[in-house]
């Protein structure tokens, strides 16, 4: 089988040949497109390390067949910063010690970006924790992650206000 799909990856339109329908979005990113920032943890949708944005929504890239995604927009951890300027979520994870070993961090950060866009948490730490529950951190940096998401959410809202003005 050979199939060609068009993807906008971090804002860049690319045509990608899929030579095997078994390729997941995660493996496509890591093994074929040299975007290794997205991590493979469990590869079964249980840990969240592979979280990316698909058409603006956070999903597990390990449980998504690449062949199914013609025309989609994908945002990975590599697509968040603007040059040397970190995305507010990235900056907040550093400021609040939202990680230790760092392996789950790209997934945590992409999940947080998705959570903020969904707009369901408000400023309630309990809601942040519940809505970050799809991302497991074996180092146990959850306290810092919750604080980082709360602060980043304020920063993103502030940036939106500035942009609108």
């Amino acid at each position: 089988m050979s199939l060609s799909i068009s993807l906008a990856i971090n804002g860049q339109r690319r045509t990608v040949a899929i030579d095997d329908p078994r390729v997941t979005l995660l493996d496509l990113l890591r093994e074929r497109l040299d975007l290794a920032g997205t991590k493979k943890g469990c590869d079964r949708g249980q840990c969240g390390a592979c979280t990316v944005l698909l058409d603006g929504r956070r999903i597990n890239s390990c449980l998504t067949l690449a062949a199914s995604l013609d025309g989609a927009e994908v945002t990975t951890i590599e697509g968040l910063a603007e040059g040397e300027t970190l995305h507010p979520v990235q900056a907040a994870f550093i400021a609040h010690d939202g990680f230790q070993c760092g392996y789950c961090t790209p997934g945590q950060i992409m999940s947080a970006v998705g959570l903020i866009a969904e707009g369901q948490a408000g400023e309630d730490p309990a809601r942040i924790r519940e809505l970050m529950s799809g991302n497991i951190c074996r180092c146990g940096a959850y306290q810092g992650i919750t604080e980082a998401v709360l602060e980043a959410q304020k920063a993103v809202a502030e940036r939106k206000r500035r942009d609108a003005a």
Partner: protein
Amino acid sequence: MNRFDYIQPASVSEAIAAASAPGSVYLAAGTNLLDLMKGGVARPDRVVDITRLPGLDRVDWLANGSVRIGALVRNADLAYHQRFASTFPAVAEALLSGASPQLRNAATVGGNLLQRTRCAYFHDLASACNRRMPGTGCDARDGENRLHAVLGWSDHCIATHPSDFCVPLVAFDAVIEVEGPQGAREIAVDALHRLPGNAPEREMALLPGELIVAVRIPAEAAAFAPNARYLKLRERTSYAFAVVSAVAALELADGIIRQARIALGGVAAKPWRPTEAEASLAGMRPTAAGFAKAADLALAAAKPSGDNAFKIELARRLVVRALTFALEGTPAVMPALPASPFSTMPGSAITGADHVA
């Protein structure tokens, strides 16, 4: 994962034609199917990708007040759909208590109905499993079975159905619309999943090639909106399958229960609807004694299938609590932890919070 032919049909009729070949499966988001394929539990020859089929991703309100949910509507979109969540709050609460935000963003309504059991022996190819490989036996019977079925199980299979969403669907008489090689038909969600009997491999009432195109919840279910809850006990606070779950819904008039709806999750190979328990509440005043009696009736036929006798008492208590919370009223705002067994209502006798500081 085995090799397979990948087909992306452009219409429902093309999809049905493609999937009528033996060894075919439908692929929607793949959140369950790809997991099964990676483990070798599912080994399809042909994968029919239905994600591009037009018109299956809509939520429509019909003239008679019922709602028709397209099979490709994402779980998160349905749970956060404002009119849907206020009309069927227990269904929204069940959806939000399931899986993780990432999975809910992807997983579809049709796929949720068709998800397979999470029994570890079903997933472990080295284990005997009548559901996966008919006639091989059931290693769960003498294995780690504290989370297995306490109702409707047989010597051939003691697996449970993992869905949260399906539990209120059964309580509210939802039906699925199916299209297939022999045309269109409707199936009650209650009749979709089968008890194992002596053929646990026949998990669903669907025929080869049949495709779920929509789920309908009847207008009558909206009458329960002010007093409807879904509660779920898990082994960790969030992102876990139910040990036991329960939906309870009351239609109240002048202090009397006009009718009650109850269904249990995590206890059987299908969502379990104890109609005798429901009937015992109709026409009665809501009382603690009445709720306890209904819970006793709901679990009257239960028996342990292994080290899981505790689930029977747990389920009994959860039914009482779900009825108690339903009586307190549907919360105005979805709780921070949907389906938590602790009440968020001011003045409730049962309070509590996440056990995370």
